[in-house]
């Protein structure tokens, strides 16, 4: 089953998926959200990498920081724990770099190991594949967010985190659906998974960001990174940056659902909102290969 909808350039695009979310699934995810039972799982490969890194005698601080900066789930969990009563000082930690600077290597290692050992993992191969695509997209969005911030001469650190976590709600929804598959006696097809992720990821992601005491820029980027960025109450610029980065990431790493063209990117209204001139956009588009290589290098 497929349907057509308009993209942000006003053109019709066809989505070759089942975009209807069954009522039972809708109620399940809504219920989990209302009860606050939302969890962010991790990829087993990342968990293994953390354990290997942190269990060596001389923990490579630069390497640990690098892993932290490229994994959405690890980043989210580290920030969550860093802001928990045990670790938190008088103010929340609001950036990955701040976490590295303030917590120090030992505490960071301890937290990372705890997350890797105790956290939920995507164990099913199909789920791992979907989750891995989500992670790659998150990382590509983070890289483009940095470049957009640099182009606009804005602080990069903030933009990077917004980009990395912008779709943090999607793996949460995915995990919930896979758990619920047996309970609901329903096959969670790829179409259902993606439709449910599309429908719920912004509100669930925002709830997670607020629960983890993320700064407003992150929470609002998670909630308003589509064509609703001007509804962001206080950090519209962060939301706009994430919106454009999201599109550029889709262009660079085409998901299995749709492809974005450069022509569509050039017509995005957010370019005007961000005051990005045609030559500046061309410079961003020229970075696709670099971003693709960086993401693929990680696997």
């Amino acid at each position, binding site marked *: 089953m497929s349907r057509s909808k308009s993209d942000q350039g006003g053109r019709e695009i066809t989505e070759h998926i089942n975009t209807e979310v069954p009522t039972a699934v809708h109620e399940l995810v809504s219920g989990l959200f209302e009860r606050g039972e939302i969890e962010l799982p991790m990829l087993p490969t990342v968990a293994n990498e953390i354990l290997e890194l942190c269990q060596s005698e001389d923990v490579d*601080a*630069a390497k640990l*920081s690098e892993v932290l900066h490229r994994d959405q789930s690890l980043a989210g969990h580290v920030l969550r724990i860093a802001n928990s009563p045990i670790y938190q*000082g*008088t*103010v*929340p*930690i*609001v*950036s990955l*770099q*701040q976490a*590295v*600077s*303030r917590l120090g*290597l030992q505490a960071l290692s301890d937290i990372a190991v705890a997350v890797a050992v105790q956290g939920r993992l995507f164990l099913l191969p199909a789920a791992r594949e979907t989750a891995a695509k989500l992670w790659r997209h998150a990382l590509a969005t983070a890289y483009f967010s*940095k470049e957009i*911030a*640099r182009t606009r*001469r*804005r*602080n*990069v*650190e*903030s933009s*990077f*985190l917004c980009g990395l976590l912008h779709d943090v709600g999607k793996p949460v929804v995915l995990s919930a659906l896979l758990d619920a598959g047996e309970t609901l006696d329903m096959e969670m097809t790829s179409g259902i998974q993606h439709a449910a992720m599309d429908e719920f990821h912004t509100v669930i992601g925002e709830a997670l960001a607020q629960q983890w005491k993320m*700064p*407003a*820029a992150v929470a609002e980027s998670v909630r308003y990174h589509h064509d609703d960025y001007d509804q962001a109450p*206080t950090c519209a610029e962060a939301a706009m940056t994430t919106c454009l980065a999201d599109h550029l990431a889709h262009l660079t790493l085409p998901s299995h659902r749709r492809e974005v063209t450069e022509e569509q990117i050039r017509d995005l209204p957010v*370019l*005007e*909102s961000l*005051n*990005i*001139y*045609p030559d500046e956009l061309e410079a961003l588009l020229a970075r696709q290969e670099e971003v693709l290589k960086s993401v693929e290098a990680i696997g």
Partner: protein
Amino acid sequence: MSVPRFDFVVIGSGPAGQLAATTAARDGRSVLIIERDRGVGGACVQRGTIPSKTLRETAAYYAGLKVRSCGAFDVSIPPHIQLQGLMSRMEKVVTSHTAVMSRELEELGVEQWHGRARFVGPHELEVQGVRGEPRRVTADYIIVATGSRPRTPPHAPVDHEHILDSDSLLGTMYVPESLTILGAGVIAAEYASIFASLGVKVVMVDRHALPIGFLDKELSSRFVSHFEGHEGCRFLGERGVLRVEWDGVSSVVAELDDGEKISSEKVFCALGRIANLEDLNLDAVGLAPTERGLLAVDENFRTQVDYIYAVGDVIGPPSLASCSKDQGQRAAFHALGKQAPCQSETIPIGIYTIPEISSVGLTEELAREQCEPVVGRASFAEVARGVIGGHSTGFVKLIAHPGDGRLLGAHVFGESATELIHVAQMVLLSGGGVDVFTKHVFNFPTLAEVYQVAARNIERQLEAVGSSAATARS
């Protein structure tokens, strides 16, 4: 389609551009102002003055509360507090200020275009918007007021992440625990004092012996003294920086030419600014930047092309809003064939450090090139309001002519310096002497009374040497 024509086209809507545009519009001319950013105001409003002064306000209140609370409150800013929380009003301030400026331009009939302008021939510009086809415009007079941006030196590669400049510093999510500032100009000094007041360990490094070198030396020295009074804060003058590198984990290391290595959480690079000229296609009208990357102008701010003027940061320092406004106004008046009302010697300089610094007229050094000036000083601690408010570190310095006591210059370091200076500015504008301060009653208790103390100091010196001024007034 015909190309629209205006009497004046102003490229850039910062302080210089605005004053040029409004001056021409008030004379009844047709004016177009072109701005490449969204919203008028230029870097001054969007990235510089307004955002930094908003943060400064919070830092100054915190510093003042510490003093005035006399230990009654435990006042401390936690390390790593979110920077946005300290600037929560910034967006409202910028939006409000931009709206006011835009409305003023509209009310004067100034047309506003959003886009990047470039010369395409004599009297003709092409304007490219973010979207859509470019459009052309012609004008009798064109005023270039495109401003500047922070310079990125090769040894301190600004990445807007670990090594910041004034465009990205205030976008930092949190107040760092330590900050190395490269440079000692106005921007470096302002941010150094702001972050020092917030409890950050700040190290300033610069090739010059004192910060803000164009000021009266006493002001610069007092700034250093006050700045180094904050824990962990140092000014390292007459030092060069060889390289600045991120260590890949948590620190940026600045290596100095004397071998010292300074490690800090962030580095702020404030080593000058570059004029925004590269998009203008100056070749098309036979202009070129100077070796320093600026536009050369004469005393009326006219370039080598007689219908093209340039004002503000594009012509070089001092890169202060007050000076830029004066330049914009004077350039427009010259193009209109009229005399500008303002005298550039009486344009005040305001520096928003904590506490503030402000000057008008001659420094002691410049005055000594002309005569043997009489200098009078007074501390804020010598007036009741200075003690009440805990502003004892402030002081005023007046420079007077030895012959008749005429005021030549005034310099203020301390609370409300940028407001207080206008009292001295008015005396300078009227050609008055220091007796203007002593013969008139001021409100009590006020900080302005410190002028009277400094003026009496000068009068005693004049009396001592039996000057004609002192004799006439006795």
